[in-house]
């Protein structure tokens, strides 16, 4: 694979932003994720935040930028010798019952689709996690079928329940906790993507993949109980780069 041309931007005196070409692109994300792993092993960083086409390095202490850029750049030059990063594909159950998917029927009507079509189009793709932000455990997913692109609601709701699955613009995602929000809600997932009582609190990583599968209401109830009692196991596939 060709190397990308990186841009370095200072971001305060404790952080360095690395930018890849401005594209939503799998190969760029893969490069960011594997470089991120190498940086965490090799450099004295406090934490890093990958997202779409950028990677932020946060340091404990004030950093001499020019020196750090040189170190990072040298590391980048050699990084294809590094091991491939372990990535996962998460199978996330969603109940598309209208009890949860309060906008589903209206959404289907406006898109001139049947409810079944919406569910099919939503569960077919393999989505990529391009960023985690907004709320703890909120995944920015790429890969929504164009047919399902739909503007956000004009009036955001003040309370959207945890686990709600929505579509807003070109994006789809799961609300990891109750929050205000403007997306069209089409279903609910009983799983907890972020749980502060678990270690790690959030198993999904930027660069992982997500696929939704449809479950009925009794299964949603069962999974909810299993999640609450800590015995629910999310199904994952290991992917090799």
């Amino acid at each position, binding site marked *: 694979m060709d190397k990308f041309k990186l841009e370095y*931007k*200072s*971001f*305060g*005196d404790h*952080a360095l*932003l690395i*930018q890849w070409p*401005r594209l*939503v692109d799998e190969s760029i994300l893969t490069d960011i994720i594997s470089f991120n792993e190498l940086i965490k092993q090799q450099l004295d960083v*406090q*934490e*890093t*935040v*990958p*997202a*779409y*086409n*950028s990677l*932020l390095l*946060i340091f404990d202490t004030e950093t001499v930028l020019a020196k750090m850029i040189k170190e990072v750049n040298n590391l980048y030059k050699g990084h294809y010798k590094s091991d491939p990063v372990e990535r996962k594909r998460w199978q996330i159950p969603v109940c598309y019952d209208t009890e949860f998917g309060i906008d589903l029927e209206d959404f289907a009507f406006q898109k001139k689709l049947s409810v079944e079509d919406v569910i099919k189009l939503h569960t077919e793709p393999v989505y990529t996690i*391009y*960023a*985690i*932000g*907004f*709320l*703890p*455990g*909120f995944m*920015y997913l790429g890969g929504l079928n164009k047919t399902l692109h739909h503007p956000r609601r004009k009036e955001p709701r003040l309370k959207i329940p945890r686990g709600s699955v929505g579509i807003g613009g070109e994006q789809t995602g799961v609300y*990891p*906790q*109750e929050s205000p929000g403007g997306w069209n809600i089409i279903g609910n997932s009983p799983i907890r993507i*972020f749980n*502060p009582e678990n270690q*790690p*609190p*959030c198993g999904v*990583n*930027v660069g992982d993949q997500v696929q939704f599968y449809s479950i009925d209401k009794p299964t949603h109830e069962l999974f909810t109980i299993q999640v609450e009692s800590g015995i629910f196991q999310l199904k994952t596939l290991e992917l090799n780069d």
Partner: protein
Amino acid sequence: MIKVLEPGLFSTIQDLGRKGYRDKGVPLSGAMDSHSAALANTLVGNPEGAAVMETTMTGPKLQFDGETVFAITGGSGSLMLNGEEIQPVRAYKAKRGDILDMGRSNNGLRAYLAVRKGFRTVEVLGSRSWYVPLTPSSHLKKGDILPVEVYSGELPKSRRVPKPVDFSKKRLKACKGPEFTLLSTQQQRQLKTGIFTVAKENNRMACQLNENLLPHEMSILTSATLPGTVQLTPAGKMIILMRDAQTTGGYPRILQLEEEAICLLAQKHTGEEIMFSF
């Protein structure tokens, strides 16, 4: 233990924040004015990062259930211990049954109360900073009981403590943000010479400004943000991210405040003037 008789306007427990989970979308959190929090801790003989109480504008009324040593820093007004006035930036002894009334601040917006050994509220992901849904409560409520260890020792020997900051200063020191260079010359000039005022939309997540820069059509792909990041919305509104802010954002990041400037901004009331110096 400390019992909350009156909660004040918006009081929370904060340390220096929750590090290491920002790639999972967990805000840093921590004391808005970290300098004042560290100073309060120093005065009572704590490590700088012990958990303190952060109050906003109107402070709480608290009752001590056991002996301890405490100190108050930051923006404070008339402080009363059992009805007698006490001074900020000084350590005091409290005994069982004492009542501390932190009153209404008449300079900075936020005060910090440190007690010896820190508040022992629940630690979640390495921090005691209150942030819902990670911690059970978002702010103090009447009747809350806060765990504090009994300390019957002497007041810490007066050691040299840094002078408290002058909260009336207007200049916020900043560095250029990653998207600064996308600004037009005119916008850059506005930013450099403008006097801005703090909007009423200011809280632990973000502080908006009343005056806008010129509108623009710049956009970026969602990318990391930090406390102190100055974001510019397409309408030209500036949103300065604070400690509880989300970890990523889609608006251009035009400036990045220095730590000292974040602390100063945390002390500004609605309507107060600020300027950027970069």
